[in-house]
């Protein structure tokens, strides 16, 4: 009996380990698009522009739990027949499976604008970093497109490296949606105090330059000189390989609350699970439609959960009896020496200062229906456990009764 894990990132690795730990002794084959073994991505945006970056530290340790796993790297899954239980790889190989993990992650969205391509970069993969670091030596002026967390981390790192940095963002504030207006405005002030310039409410329309980017023209008609452009404008889930099977693949692979992939008709398939950035799932903290949560910690947590769910099915267990996925979503960001930690679901609904003040160390809470559903801490790591316990309480209160013990 074989399990195919499509996707050789952290979610794929953690799911393979979980399947093995649950006692599955058949074959596990992990297939990946990148030629690299699974590696840790956060340092790419947080450290890679700095001098301290050490690429040798990135690969995950492959422990006993993943011993005997077969790795087919550089040959992504390009098609799947879920009725026949096969996956086709880019090199033409067809793999049969009894269980399938969809952990193919996301790719960077890129801007489709006139002008040269050279000098424009995204930051998601090791190969992105290799290309970026070759261009960095020449760069004094960097334009970052997109003021989400990745864009802001890169801007802070580049500024710390002595470069001139301008961030272009159509929204009126950086990191506005995940943090809310007030905290976003406070962090904008901190970035500006460190010399990062912002062009808010503007978007790029043309890249200028002869063969290589030299400037970016914006919607307001102004032009920014640039030796290097970094595009951090969102991600696209890699789900095309699942097309043609009647799945709901709008904005990710739709799953049930146990991370079993929803078949046509809307019931979870025991033999297929999804994990990581490409998985779209319900969560007690999220009202309404299932959503992707593209946090580092969620990729690991969903990987473990999905692997265990698949192993339960393969050993004859009832998939519907398994626990729901209710882990606390959490992420962090490092900008200008500030530690920003968020957990739960932030940015939505009413935001209020729980302690501290917005221009110093602060805890901001986010409420929905009078319940605390998310918290962001700036410089208050010592309060993490205190507030996280409150989010855990909210999850317990909102979780369906059948999964309250999960």
């Amino acid at each position: 009996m074989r399990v195919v894990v499509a996707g050789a990132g952290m979610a794929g690795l953690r799911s393979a380990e979980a399947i093995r730990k649950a006692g599955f002794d058949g074959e596990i084959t992990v297939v990946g698009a990148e030629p690299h073994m699974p590696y840790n991505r956060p340092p790419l945006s947080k450290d890679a522009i700095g001098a301290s970056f050490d690429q040798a530290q990135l690969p995950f340790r492959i422990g006993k739990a993943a011993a005997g796993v077969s790795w087919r790297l550089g040959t992504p899954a390009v098609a799947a027949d879920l009725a026949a239980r096969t996956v086709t790889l880019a090199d033409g190989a067809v793999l049969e499976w009894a269980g399938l993990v969809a952990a193919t992650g996301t790719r960077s969205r890129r801007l489709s604008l006139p002008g040269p391509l050279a000098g424009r970069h995204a930051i998601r993969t090791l190969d992105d970093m290799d290309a970026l670091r070759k261009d960095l030596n020449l760069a004094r002026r960097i334009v970052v497109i997109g003021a989400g967390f990745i864009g802001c981390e890169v801007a802070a790192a580049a500024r710390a490296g002595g470069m001139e940095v301008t961030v272009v963002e159509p929204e009126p504030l950086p990191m506005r949606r995940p943090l809310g207006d007030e905290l976003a405005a406070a962090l904008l002030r901190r970035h500006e105090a460190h010399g990062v310039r912002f062009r808010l409410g503007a978007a790029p329309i043309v890249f200028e330059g002869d063969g290589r980017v030299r400037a970016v023209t914006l919607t307001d008609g102004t032009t920014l000189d640039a030796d290097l452009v970094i595009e951090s404008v969102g991600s696209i889930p890699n789900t095309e390989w699942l097309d043609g099977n009647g799945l709901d693949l709008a904005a990710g692979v739709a799953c049930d609350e146990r991370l079993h992939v929803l078949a046509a008709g809307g019931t979870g398939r025991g033999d297929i699970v999804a994990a990581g950035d490409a998985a779209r799932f319900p969560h007690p903290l999220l009202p309404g439609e299932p959503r992707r949560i593209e946090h580092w910690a969620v990729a690991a947590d969903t990987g473990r959960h999905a692997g265990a769910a698949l192993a339960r099915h393969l050993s004859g267990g009832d998939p519907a009896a398994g626990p729901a996925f209710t882990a606390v979503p959490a992420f962090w960001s490092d900008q200008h020496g500030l530690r920003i930690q968020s957990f739960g679901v932030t940015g939505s609904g009413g935001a209020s200062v729980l302690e501290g003040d917005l221009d110093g160390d602060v805890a901001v809470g986010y409420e929905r229906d009078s319940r605390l559903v998310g918290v962001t801490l700036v410089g208050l790591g010592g309060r993490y456990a205190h507030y996280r316990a409150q989010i855990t309480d909210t999850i317990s209160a909102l979780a369906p009764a059948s999964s309250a013990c999960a």
Partner: protein
Amino acid sequence: MRITVDLKKCNDHGQCVFSAPAVFSLDEDGKLSFRREAADTYASGDLDESLRDDVEEAADACPLQAILVEG
């Protein structure tokens, strides 16, 4: 089973505390408490086998991948 924690890598994210609270803790400043016992590398004594799942989850959950589980 033993653990070592590379305290030069560790960035006090505290994720290990939630995975394995019987082994890891933060002090009131939010720093990993092992920092009081070692400067560069903390090495535990022998840990009970019943803690293995929690400790392995902590090692997975560490953003800096600073925890090594041995044995």
